């Protein structure tokens, strides 16, 4: 179905096959050395299955058939029909060798040797018959006759350049490239990041020393000129130059002239030393200059290195497109449509991290195109279109971004329908006039759909909203364009590399953040004191746009003076929105690292950066910030072990009650704190956060009612559930306690069941909403 250049496809196949063969090589040697385990068989089974499928795709029937046979054998092993005896392992190994031989032929541009297939199948038949005859409990520890394997027809290896050396087989296609663990590349990038930080420090320091050296140089010159001045003045006063107006003066003794001489000498010396210093300073400043130049060269080299290393993470996007061939075929069948898939620009390189995260959004768009976009064959014929719908996947590079387009020549998106739906949903008023772009962007609004029925695949789960979110997570944007009745194009723009990006740095309170410059349209200033900022809307280029104050959202105390605040206008795909920050600090070319997976759920950040001086800055994802009008709240995951770790404070003046309740709770893995009265209890609460308080009413020093009202009066503590445990059974007391803020009332002596009930009620289902 897919019009794919076969040689291109073959290339992908070969690199894929290499992977599977390596899995097999490893797996088979593992089978030989370790007891058979399900996971391994499953892995091999999958490898065989995939190999079979992709070989069939590039029309390598023999390879596919042999892989199929391997799959069968592995399935039998998995289902316990046969044991992975030595014979079977040898057989698998032989089959693998055959496949290697076949693939080597293909890589060398020859055709498959189809005769081998029968030989292999005979062999399989032979071994399997023998296996079935063998006692069922035979296992790999029983030595089996290996004669048969030794006499295996050397059908395949005859084409091998170096027969018998299996090591060579690994390297069949790639003489000039090596495989590197991605983690190794990541590690290298991390180290380059570290070097960059150190280099920036050095750069900073050389600049400082340059200033110091300039200062010294200047001081040296001043000294020199002072000394020169002095010497001049003094030499002016030298005996030879002095005119004696008074003849008496000529009678000054020789001694005094000696002093003049000494001063003269001293000034000469000073002059010389200063000259020496100036000379040395010049050398020193030359040194600093060359040091500075060298550091700058290092700077450039590091940049080159960084680019080179990050390029090793780049993958041809064609490998991603290839993964869609099968699903497109299946989906076309599922929806009863005829579809031709065309792919171009498969050699566009893209960062591995982005590569991985593009599959989900792309498959969703493709699914939409097939189910909603492209019409049924008869419908198409009626419209005088070709019966086969056309789905076009293209990729190209534009500067630092990769543009991926998914185009279908189906019915297009009717903006009138969108408008109608939006009015129905109350998103728009009927009199509102919107441009085509604005209307089209409605499809990205969460929960917005125009399709009447939700079908199996596309109407369920992920909407276009999710597509947009996934793409924004890799700092990309998605746009849509359509001609009703003719075509729809989704255009995804993602950075070609997530590694290095130009970012804008800003802060909120003391915390610094960055945002990729590619997502920013403009930065403006607004006056927060005027009426302009009464609502969340501000006017930008004649349109009202929604804004959010970062500090407010994060609960950070803003340090801004609240008069002029910068607003970062970002493209949030369906609209523009403004992020109000405290201060814009500058911009920086920087490495963006994916979020540590422990923090992976914080979609509001799309990554992290480390600044030149070693500070961590989180990358703000504006799409997530402005997704609906929502306020994110962090939530503590419920602790798997139920009560474990929950803290309860028991307040009672009776030691036996305290002991009894503590023992009961500790047996249920609670951490228990005890106090004999309200004051003691409040002291504990000062230091220890607890999840629940169980208190008596009558106690010395501070009784229960007062204790409860103190807690209710504290902003920090008022949410803690309080259970009153008392011997006062009258309704009057119960009512009073509940009125003062207690959540539950338990009468002594209590039974364990009712306490358990109360614990469950207040702790187990901590209502996070």
């Amino acid at each position, binding site marked *: 179905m897919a019009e794919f250049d076969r040689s291109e496809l073959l290339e992908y196949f070969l690199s894929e096959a290499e992977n599977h063969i390596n899995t097999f090589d490893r797996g088979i040697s593992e089978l030989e050395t370790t007891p058979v385990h399900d996971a391994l068989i499953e892995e091999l089974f999958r490898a065989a299955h995939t190999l079979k499928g992709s070989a069939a795709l590039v029309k390598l029937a023999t390879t596919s058939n042999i892989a199929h046979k391997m799959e069968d054998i592995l399935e039998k092993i998995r289902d316990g029909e046969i044991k992975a005896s030595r014979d079977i392992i040898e057989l698998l190994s032989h089959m693998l060798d055959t496949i290697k031989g076949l693939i080597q032929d293909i890589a060398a541009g020859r055709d498959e040797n189809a005769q081998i297939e029968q030989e292999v199948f005979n062999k399989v038949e032979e071994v399997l018959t023998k296996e079935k005859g063998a006692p069922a409990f035979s296992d790999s520890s029983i030595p089996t006759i290996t004669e048969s394997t030794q006499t295996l027809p050397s059908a395949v290896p005859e084409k091998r350049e170096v027969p018998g050396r299996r090591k060579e087989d690994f390297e069949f296609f790639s003489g000039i490239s090596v495989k590197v663990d991605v983690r190794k590349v990541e590690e290298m990038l991390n180290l380059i990041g570290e070097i960059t930080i150190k280099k920036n420090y050095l750069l900073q320091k050389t600049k400082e020393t340059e200033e110091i050296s300039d200062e010294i140089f200047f001081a040296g010159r001043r000294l020199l000129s002072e000394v020169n001045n002095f010497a001049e003045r003094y030499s002016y006063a030298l005996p030879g130059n002095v005119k004696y107006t008074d003849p008496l003066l000529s009678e000054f003794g020789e001694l005094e002239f000696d002093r003049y001489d000494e001063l003269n000498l001293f000034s000469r010396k000073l002059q010389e030393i200063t000259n020496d210093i100036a000379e040395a300073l010049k050398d020193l400043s030359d040194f600093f200059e060359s040091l500075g130049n060298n550091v700058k060269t290092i700077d450039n080299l590091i940049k080159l290195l960084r680019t080179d290393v990050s390029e090793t993470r780049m993958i041809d996007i064609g490998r991603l497109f290839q993964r869609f061939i099968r699903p497109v075929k299946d989906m076309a069948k599922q929806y009863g449509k005829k579809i031709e898939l065309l792919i171009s620009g498969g050699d566009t390189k893209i960062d591995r991290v982005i590569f991985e995260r593009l599959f989900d959004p792309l498959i969703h768009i493709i699914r939409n195109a097939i189910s909603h976009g492209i019409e049924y064959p008869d419908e198409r014929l009626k419209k005088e279109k070709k019966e086969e719908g056309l789905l076009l996947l293209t990729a190209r590079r534009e500067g630092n971004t990769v543009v991926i387009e998914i185009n279908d020549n189906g019915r297009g998106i009717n903006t009138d329908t969108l408008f109608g739906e939006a009015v129905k949903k109350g998103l728009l008023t009927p009199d509102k006039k919107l441009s085509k772009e604005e209307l089209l962007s409605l499809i990205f609004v969460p929960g917005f759909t125009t399709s009447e029925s939700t079908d199996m695949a596309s109407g369920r789960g992920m909407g276009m909203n999710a597509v947009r979110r996934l793409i924004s997570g890799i700092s990309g944007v998605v746009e849509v364009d359509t001609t009703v009745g003719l075509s729809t194009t989704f255009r995804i723009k993602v950075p070609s590399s997530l590694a290095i990006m130009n970012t804008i740095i800003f802060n909120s309170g003391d915390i610094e953040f960055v945002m990729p410059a590619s997502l920013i349209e403009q930065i403006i200033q607004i006056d927060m004191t005027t009426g302009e900022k009464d609502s969340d809307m501000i006017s930008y280029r004649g349109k009202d746009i929604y804004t959010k104050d970062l500090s407010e959202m994060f609960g950070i105390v803003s340090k801004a003076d609240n008069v002029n605040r910068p607003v970062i206008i970002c493209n949030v795909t369906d609209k523009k929105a403004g992020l109000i920050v405290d201060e814009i600090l500058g911009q920086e070319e920087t490495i963006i690292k994916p979020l540590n997976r422990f923090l*992976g759920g914080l979609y509001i950040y799309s990554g992290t950066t480390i600044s030149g001086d070693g500070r961590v800055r989180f990358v703000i994802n504006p799409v997530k910030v402005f997704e609906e009008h929502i306020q994110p709240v962090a939530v503590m995951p419920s602790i798997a072990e139920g009560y474990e770790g929950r803290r309860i404070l028991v307040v009672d003046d009776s030691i036996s009650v305290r002991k009894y309740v503590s023992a009961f709770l500790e047996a249920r893995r609670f951490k228990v704190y005890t106090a004999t009265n309200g004051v003691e209890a409040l002291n504990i609460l000062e230091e220890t956060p607890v999840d629940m308080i169980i208190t008596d009413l009558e106690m010395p020093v501070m009784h229960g009612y007062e204790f409860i009202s103190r807690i209710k009066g504290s902003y920090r503590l008022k949410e803690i559930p309080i259970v009153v445990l008392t011997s006062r059974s009258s309704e009057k007391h119960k009512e009073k306690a509940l009125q003062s803020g207690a959540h539950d009332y338990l009468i002594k002596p209590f039974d364990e069941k009712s306490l358990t009930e109360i614990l469950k009620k207040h702790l187990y289902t901590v209502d996070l909403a």
Partner: protein
Amino acid sequence: MNSEFEKEPIEESTYCVFKVGEKEFLLPVKLVKEVVDASPLFPVPLTPEYVYGVIPLRGRIIPVIDLSKIYPTGKPDYNDAKLVIADVELELMREAINEHIGFLSETLPYFVSFSSDISSDDIINVKSFFETFRLKELWYGRV
């Protein structure tokens, strides 16, 4: 199965012991990547309180966990805190991936060895800890 078990010699395992509040936690030493000074730490807005912040280390950005906000340890004193960096191996898209997380410790951790058949509740299973406490999709409330 039983016979296999008996053959296996009881091995000594070494643990890294670190202190939080009144409690000591143990980590298998082979999972401890390194121990560093817990500074400089950077806060992360919108995280639950057990995420104390992050620390940059050799180009990685590592979340710093305050166990006192998860387990009943009593009030910790992190004035001169150390950070125990643990290595977690995860599986993502059928590929093994290593991630690091750091646990705050009040004092410099020390190491003990005891036979591996002794089990203690205070040994942290890093992998399941990571799975349980890693931040999943944020809960969003409407304003």
